[in-house]
């Protein structure tokens, strides 16, 4: 058996990292850009991964977060010049889940109304707050890994997350009342 060349070893390692990271990374990107841009962003991101293969963390969870950080930097770098920002906003689903979805067979009209409220409140969040919440809520990262994605300390991330949650609650609580479709107890908790 002929020895494995460095190039072949690199390719093998990359394919393993790709297999590990691709699905979650695609979801990360799809939450932050329109569907037409996803493939190009993923290609650019994985090319950076290829170049920096020796920097990929060895544990799967750390490697996952590391690829998110690379994708984030790819996206921020693409937004240079006047439009350059320092945080990535997170998109929400435009439509509620389809009626065929088992999970929503029993969705009530009130729940749909709450989701609309939540969607509106989310829009009022800053990119910084959307980003902080998104890493916890959608990517499921703990504070240490979320902080690593953003390049800040875990303490700074926890503070940012706390403020983001507070901001979201404030926006939710200051929306106009809408008529309910059924006679039900008010869904606002007492503060």
């Amino acid at each position: 058996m002929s020895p494995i060349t460095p190039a072949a070893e690199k390719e093998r390692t990359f394919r393993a990292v790709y297999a590990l990271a691709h699905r979650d990374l695609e979801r990360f990107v799809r939450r932050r850009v329109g569907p037409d841009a996803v493939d190009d962003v993923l290609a650019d991101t994985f090319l950076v991964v290829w170049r920096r293969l020796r920097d990929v963390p060895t544990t799967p969870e750390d490697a996952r977060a590391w690829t998110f950080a690379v994708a984030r930097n790819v996206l921020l770098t693409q937004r240079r010049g006047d439009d350059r920002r320092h945080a990535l906003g997170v998109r929400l689903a435009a439509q509620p889940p389809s009626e065929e979805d088992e999970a929503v067979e029993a969705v009530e009209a009130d729940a749909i109304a709450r989701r609309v409220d939540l969607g509106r409140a989310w829009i009022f969040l800053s990119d910084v707050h959307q980003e902080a919440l998104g890493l916890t809520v959608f990517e499921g990262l703990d504070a240490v890994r979320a902080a690593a994605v953003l390049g800040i300390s875990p303490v700074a991330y926890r503070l940012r997350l706390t403020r983001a949650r507070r901001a979201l609650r404030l926006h939710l609580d200051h929306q106009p009342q809408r008529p309910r479709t059924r006679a039900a107890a008010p869904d606002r908790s007492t503060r």
Partner: protein
Amino acid sequence: MNRTRQIETALRTMDAAPDRHPTSNARIDVLLERVVVAGTAEDRAPAPPTTAAFAHRGPKPRAARLLLLTGGLVAATTAGLLLIPSMLGVEESAYASWTAVPEALPAQERPEAAEDCRSAQLATPGGDAHPQLDDATVAIAERRGAWITVVLAGADGFSATCTADASAPFGDGWIGSAGIPTDWELLGPRELLVSSLGVAHSSGPLSMAEGYAGPDVTGMTYDSAEHGTVVATVSGGHFAFWMPGDELDDDLVFTTGVPVDVTYNDGSTDSVNLRF
């Protein structure tokens, strides 16, 4: 369930990328092969630069960014900066002689180094678009092992940079740039203006920072994770340092910037982030 959890549970039902609709395996495989082909090609042969963007912002002058090349000429998109063909087929071992602390090129060697740089720039397609090269004088001439860096300075902010392996004929492979930053103006005494900041991906990555320095700036160092303290040459209103590796990558350049320690003529120091 407390309110935060309720809200976040509801948010998860609004995920823009639910896992209910996974991407097809065919599409996943196509992307994988696309990246493997591109990455392998990049490793095997000199590759064109990944970007050639030049950032200019606000009233303050901002120079175009040099994307250190691995081969082929890239025309500047703004500000008349010309990017020069670079080190073709350079192996990482070529950087083995590199030193973190530069030596000033001896006085008797400077004219020849300057002429070599000038000739190489003029010989590059589009190089004759810079008549300022004829009258440009040597602002920086340093040696790091076998490598020489020359910065020529001309009128109205013109500058031309060449970095070459002096152990081989100059024309065999070198990197550099030439031009004038958009809206260039004289710097304040302690100001810095970046003209080149980034990484070239050849068979050996190389990171460079180069630009203009106000008259009170006398020294600059960069604390490299890989190489320790890298000392810049500060001379003639310019600064320059470079090192093997890809430490000054986009992640750094376009986020926090490149942190350097700057020394001034009154002995004071300051930490500054180099960025466009």
